[in-house]
């Protein structure tokens, strides 16, 4: 419904004259002059608030009634694009009972009535080839919201083709006064090499995460393609920029790869700053409004597993950087991985937490990670709250590679999931035979007693790879963790069993200018594309994926037969993961003490594990599921859903959305979902009633936002 603006000005003057606050008479029913806050039951940011907490102080839905939740409404994203989407990862924002989010293969924007799921408006933008070749596709993680507090309410988001756009939140109309006709071309100013502007259409830059809106500024990160088999080390250079929310004018830019004369440039030896890229901020940033500081979690430099073209520590790759919100000037930084070659991108929002340690009040920042370490710093000074020690690690023997002799190891809190494979303790142990088989399998790999085991040149005749845990998927990946500001507890779900052998190989002649990248010499070369790559609405049909491939050998047999139809797939023993359960965990970390408060398995035992163990007559409890998912924290509950479909007999085939008691970790309720959680859950009030919305999708089930609420009589 369109809001009449003509009534507003005289009324404003009248009310100001009378010294009263006014509420605009408004046909849409949405009161103008509304400032959202989680205190009011809104969810105004991707992470609920600017501090990354994912916390909303609601308890209408609690342990006594969670299992009675019913589906209030559902919104399918199928037709927001030319074909359905099967990887819906958005978390809506909620303002005064209205939801705003992305959806569909076009990354359209929708506004929904939070009570019914009815569409208020939609917005879509055909970007053509620019979106089709974009590195980060599908609908991404959502939108952001801005208001002047007086009824000028806007939705702010980044398109697939990497443009910053503002829409009128009430009508979905483009704010033409912003940028150029409502858009800022974010590719302008993105460079590669020593400063060459990337092509506006085909240049590699994009984003999945939501822009950060704070006061009258918009902070935007950048993302490139997955870095396993890049065609060049001289890729687009990542950066973080701030824009004026009214005009779209760029306020500042922070170079995550320092230029000559800038601090840190010498950590790219032999002038390698000029021939490397990536090092973007592809995940959510956070801001301390009072201190005027922004926290930037930076990813890997180009080529996630080989750094021979960039000797040196490569600042600010894999670093947490604190910058001045107004100027973008660096205040402090901490590099979490030196000379990054493990795909340990900083993957989620740094959580701002005000804690008390040994009687001392500290304004802290707690950074979850793929390594399942929570790095905790004084967010003003950058000093670690508990010592982080430089310890010696395995060195690489890949030609041209020069690894850092040491890496940072936090002393507290302890890792909240496994980040290396401890032999034999972490190996499968349902039976002694299985453990023996696991040890046998591992004899083909290099195993270390700590993380940061660098890739090796894998070969059938020698070692197949270097065992690492958690690199691509975590630990904690993009969904991040949550925080309870009342109890100072971080809640983090984490993958706990992603063991893989990392190996590199020479690219096929002519494919890449890198000397080595991800792969193995005895395996045919496959270009590794990112999730969802090429799935955008206008992907050219005629285009062949990748480049000419080598002809494949006959399928390798005898990798270890799995029970029931299968053959052997991956690092497994009799079809079971090589790491013993729990396969995934939920941890509560007390930041005042630096300790684990509780840790429970995440989700429930996967079907194939259940079947194999049952066939073998082996008893088991809840073994948990692998994977990284987001959670939601309320006054009494931690809420998150399974990322796999199961059919255990105790519920219909599907995934469960589960609630855990915040204090104890005990599962206190669960409701059925038809498909796995694929986006992080959120909660809000609409019409005085509490709702939980979560994106589900996967397998044969296309993307859907599923909303739960209590039945009327509860």
């Amino acid at each position: 419904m369109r809001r009449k603006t003509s009534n507003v000005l005289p009324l404003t003057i009248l009310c100001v004259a009378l010294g009263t606050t006014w509420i605009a008479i408004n046909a849409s029913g949405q009161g103008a002059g509304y400032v959202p806050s989680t205190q009011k039951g809104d969810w105004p940011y991707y992470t609920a608030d600017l501090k990354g907490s994912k916390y909303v102080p609601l308890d209408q839905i609690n342990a006594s009634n969670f299992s009675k939740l019913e589906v209030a409404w559902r919104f399918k994203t199928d037709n927001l694009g030319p074909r359905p989407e099967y990887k819906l990862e958005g978390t809506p924002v909620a303002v005064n009972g209205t939801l705003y989010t992305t959806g569909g293969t076009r990354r359209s924007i929708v506004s929904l009535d939070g009570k019914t799921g009815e569409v208020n408006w939609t917005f879509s933008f055909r970007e053509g080839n620019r979106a089709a070749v974009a590195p980060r596709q599908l609908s991404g993680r959502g939108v952001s919201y801005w208001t002047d507090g007086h009824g000028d309410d806007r939705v702010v988001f980044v398109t697939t083709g990497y443009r910053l756009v503002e829409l009128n939140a009430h009508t979905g109309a483009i704010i033409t006064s912003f940028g150029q006709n409502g858009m800022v071309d974010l590719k302008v100013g993105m460079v590669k090499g020593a400063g060459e502007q990337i092509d506006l259409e085909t240049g590699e830059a994009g984003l999945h995460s939501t822009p950060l809106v704070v006061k009258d500024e918009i902070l935007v990160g950048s993302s490139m393609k997955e870095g396993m088999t890049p065609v060049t080390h001289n890729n687009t250079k990542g950066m973080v920029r701030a824009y004026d929310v009214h005009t779209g004018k760029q306020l500042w830019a922070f170079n995550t790869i320092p230029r000559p004369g800038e601090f840190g440039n010498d950590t790219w030896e032999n002038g390698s700053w000029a021939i490397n890229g990536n090092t973007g901020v592809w995940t959510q940033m956070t801001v301390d409004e009072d201190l005027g500081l922004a926290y930037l979690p930076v990813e890997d430099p180009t080529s996630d597993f080989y750094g021979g073209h960039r000797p040196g520590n490569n600042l600010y790759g894999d670093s947490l950087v604190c910058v001045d919100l107004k100027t973008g000037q660096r205040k402090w930084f901490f590099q979490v991985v030196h000379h990054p070659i493990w795909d340990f991108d900083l993957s989620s929002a740094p959580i701002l937490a005000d804690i008390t340690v040994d009687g001392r009040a500290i304004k802290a920042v707690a950074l979850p990670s793929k390594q399942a370490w929570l790095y905790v710093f004084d967010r003003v000074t950058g000093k670690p709250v508990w010592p982080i020690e430089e310890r010696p690690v395995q060195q690489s023997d890949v030609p041209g590679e020069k690894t850092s002799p040491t890496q940072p190891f936090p002393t507290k809190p302890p890792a909240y999931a496994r980040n290396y494979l401890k032999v034999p303790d972490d190996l499968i142990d349902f039976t002694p035979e299985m453990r023996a088989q696991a040890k046998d399998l591992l004899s083909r790999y290099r195993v270390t007693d700590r993380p940061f085991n660098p890739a090796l040149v894998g070969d059938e005749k020698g070692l197949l790879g270097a065992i690492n845990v958690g690199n691509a998927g975590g630990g904690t990946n993009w969904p991040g963790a949550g925080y309870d500001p009342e109890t100072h507890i971080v809640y983090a779900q984490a993958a706990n069993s992603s063991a893989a052998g990392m190996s590199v190989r020479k690219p096929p002649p002519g494919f890449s200018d890198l000397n080595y990248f991800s792969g193995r010499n005895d395996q045919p070369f496959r270009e590794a594309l990112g999730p969802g790559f090429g799935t955008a609405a206008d992907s050219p049909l005629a285009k062949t994926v990748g480049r000419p491939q080598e002809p494949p050998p006959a399928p390798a047999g005898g990798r270890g037969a799995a029970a029931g139809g299968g053959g052997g797939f991956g690092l497994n023993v009799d079809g079971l993961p090589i790491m013993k359960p729990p396969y995934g965990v939920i941890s509560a970390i007390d930041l005042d003490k630096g300790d684990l408060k509780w840790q429970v398995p995440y989700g429930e035992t996967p079907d194939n594990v259940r079947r194999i163990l049952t066939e073998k007559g082996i008893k088991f409890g809840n073994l948990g599921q692998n994977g990284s998912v987001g959670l939601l924290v309320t006054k009494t509950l931690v809420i998150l859903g399974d990322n796999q479909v199961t059919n255990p007999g105790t519920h219909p085939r599907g995934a469960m959305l589960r609630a855990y008691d915040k204090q104890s970790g005990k599962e206190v309720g669960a409701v059925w979902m038809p498909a796995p959680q694929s986006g992080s859950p959120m909660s809000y009030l609409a019409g005085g009633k509490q709702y939980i919305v979560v994106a589900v999708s996967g397998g044969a089930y296309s993307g859907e936002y599923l909303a739960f609420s209590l039945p009327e009589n509860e």
Partner: protein
Amino acid sequence: MNLRTVVLTVASLALGALHSNLSADATRSVWDGVYTQEQAKQGQPLYNESCSSCHGDNLIGQDVAPALGGGEFLSNWDGLTLGDLFQRIRTTMPASRPGSLSGEKNAAILAYILSVNQFPAGKTALAQQKEVLDEIKISASKPDKK
């Protein structure tokens, strides 16, 4: 015809009808030889060309795309039909150019996937129509023989 014959005829006709109804409703599964060796052989180079860059050599998967074989894959699709899987592939894959492969090619790739998962081949090739493939259940474990 005497009454007894009529009754018997009617009875056997009714039973016959009932029997054929049961056959029509009886769900076949992937264990019943639902594709041919030839079809799977055609599917292999098609898989390598269109699918392996994301789903890996020998369907093993990578972090960018899941395995198309093995316990976890079969668990995810257990209880659904080949029609569901075929439809998913047909409309959204390969990721870089969805819907670009013909029904025949998609069926061949699906046959190859079934063969790598060690489901038995048989005399009938996989159909290309979702509705027909909906009659074949994906069952992670071999159903008990009746």
